[in-house]
């Protein structure tokens, strides 16, 4: 990352005095996202930790308008909100759905898939803390293999792998997908600013550690985020049009053991399970590498990036209405 010289926007849009726990990854994600997005933004937040973090009405820490919506509706409400803005001739305001992993991978997935298929013109940011943290740490389909949660107790920790949301969304061929981490604000802000310039559906997946849910000290939040990147648990990526893969950062490939050992939620793991996790990570990385190689080959033969501006049906619809 050393070679990226990036000036973070100085303005703090997220106000102090929010309700987050110390060391909350989801709150850092919001802070950096707002720096990148600026004030002309409307947030659509379904049920998640951020329902609470924003503060009780009339107080709001977000610094931009917040549209709190039902658990399963972030992408649909954002679609409607964007259509409403377009119909009023507002093409400037950025609509951002900001949802946790439960509201993205599970209950909100149908709405998300629908919005992606229609190539709706908004940014969807998922802050992924790998479980339902706001209701007391229940497993979601984003919870990784082997993790403890209150509904995957340590005697029988989660037996399934984390759902690969990035691959699923890539299969929708949306214009822009990126994964990022609160440990690398320059990477995160650059990607969200890039997303802001692209039209159509954009999805940003933010790896967001949760001290009470993952069982580590709040001051280790950034350290753990870095470890996740270095150990290839969470690759930093960009995917254009669902096919053009770019790696943002080549990780050192440190043993996953070091990452797991820092968190109480993995304390019960036996050596054999740790090896199994390492094996899965290595296999996934090989698969990713082959996609990176074939993307590069395609880029070279096409002579440039694949992403391009889309014609958006509902934008046209709005314009037609205004003419009448």
């Amino acid at each position, binding site marked *: 990352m050393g070679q990226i010289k990036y000036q973070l926007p100085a303005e703090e849009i997220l106000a102090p005095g929010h309700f987050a726990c110390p060391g909350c990854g989801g709150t850092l994600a919001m802070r950096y996202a707002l720096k990148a997005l600026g004030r002309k933004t409307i947030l659509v937040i379904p049920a998640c930790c951020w*329902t609470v973090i924003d503060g009780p009405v009339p107080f709001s820490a977000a610094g931009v308008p917040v549209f*709190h919506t039902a658990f399963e509706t972030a992408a649909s409400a954002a679609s409607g909100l964007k259509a409403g803005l377009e119909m009023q001739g507002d093409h400037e305001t950025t609509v951002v759905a900001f949802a946790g992993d439960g509201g993205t991978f599970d209950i909100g*997935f149908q709405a998300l898939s629908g919005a992606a298929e229609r190539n709706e013109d908004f940014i969807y940011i998922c802050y992924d803390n790998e479980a339902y943290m706001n209701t007391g740490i229940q497993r979601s389909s984003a919870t990784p293999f082997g993790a403890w949660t209150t509904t995957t107790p340590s005697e029988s920790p989660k037996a399934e792998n984390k759902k690969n949301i990035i691959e699923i969304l890539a299969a929708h061929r949306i214009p822009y997908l990126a994964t990022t981490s609160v440990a690398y604000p320059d990477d995160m802000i650059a990607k969200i600013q890039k997303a802001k310039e692209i039209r159509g559906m954009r999805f940003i997946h933010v790896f967001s550690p949760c001290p009470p849910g993952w069982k580590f000290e709040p001051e280790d939040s950034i350290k753990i985020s870095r470890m996740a990147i270095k150990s290839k648990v969470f690759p930093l990526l960009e995917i254009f049009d669902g096919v053009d893969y770019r790696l943002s950062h080549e990780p050192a490939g440190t043993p996953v053991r070091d990452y797991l050992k820092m968190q109480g939620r993995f304390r019960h793991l036996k050596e054999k399970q740790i090896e199994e996790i390492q094996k899965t990570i290595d296999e996934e990385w090989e698969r990713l590498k082959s996609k990176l190689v074939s993307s590069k080959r395609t880029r070279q033969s096409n002579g440039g990036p694949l992403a391009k501006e889309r014609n958006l049906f509902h934008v046209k619809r709005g314009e037609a209405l205004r003419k009448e």
Partner: protein
Amino acid sequence: MSLFRIRNGNQMIAEGAIAAGCRFFAGYPITPASGIYKFMIDELPKRGDVAISSPDEISALAFCIGASQRGFKAMTATSGPGFSLMVETLQYAVMTETPVVIALVQRLGPSTGGATQGGQGDALFVGHSIAGGYTIPVFSPSNPVEAYELTIHAFNVAEKFRTPVVLLTDKEVGMTSENVDYEKLPDAETTGRKYFVQSRRLSGQDGEKYKTYAFGKRDEVPEFAEVGSDVKVTITGSAHDMAGRLQKNSPETIEVLRHLQEKIALHADEVTKLDLDLSERSDTVVLSYGISARTSCEAVANLRSKGKRVSFVNLQTLFPIPEKDILKAVANAKNIVVVEENMTGLYKSQIEKLFPGKRVIGVNDVGRMITPEKIEQAVLSSSRKDN
């Protein structure tokens, strides 16, 4: 002998379910019902039974219906927002005559409402959640012991009448822990659904004759056979005849629809349960349910110690409305006080038409619990008006 354990209503619903023979649970996180989910995830797998995490509430109830159609007693638990999502599948359970129990731990609504704030705003929503006005049994425990007893009863009713049943509690009953004396818990008497008789299945020809929704008299419950077993079982949420064939409005289909209502309504006496605490010659009767029944209980005790003759009805059953028992309890009273934690007196609106000529007073609040003092004041001022 006593054996005390610290338990809350959520835990006792889970224990009641296991005692009733529940072998399948599907859950989705939601405050204040997650405790039931957690308990079942911890307990059922130990017994070789199944507790699963669903990706949303629609799936949670649909999971249960699938398991129930293979003969297992099944339960899910949720709160208002999750129940809202379940309603289509709940209606499907009515139409397919699927036994299933839903624990609904109420919070302040509407919508996301107050996730950590109690409330009793869902009684009519639940009681009238079936298009066409079909009755589903709704029970309302007011403490952990009742939660245990009524959960067992809920499973029995679900099985016997092949119907979805809702256990309607609230955040305070669900999440407040207190001493429970296990020695005093009743033995679980459990019933299962009536199966299509094995001997009649033997020949293929007889197998053909099985009809999924066949009944003799309209209020009879069809015999159950597992879907995919050796007789043809057709499960459908569409209007159907006795064999499960889709028909819009054939006479037989209309009979099936009437049957769905009558099998519950004509057997209300077997379904309903009330906890009556009547005083002789009382001029006032207090009716309440859930957490408000707890405070009403205290208010009634205080009034009696002051020499007031007050009767108390703990409405453990909300639907079908236990009309006969309520009328018996209020027969000699002039004043009826209905206590519930919602804005307008939801359940009061359902029962006040039963009492022409009597003064019916609602004691209500929203966003906070109703205090015994408030109930006492309402009772005292109502009897002052009599003098």
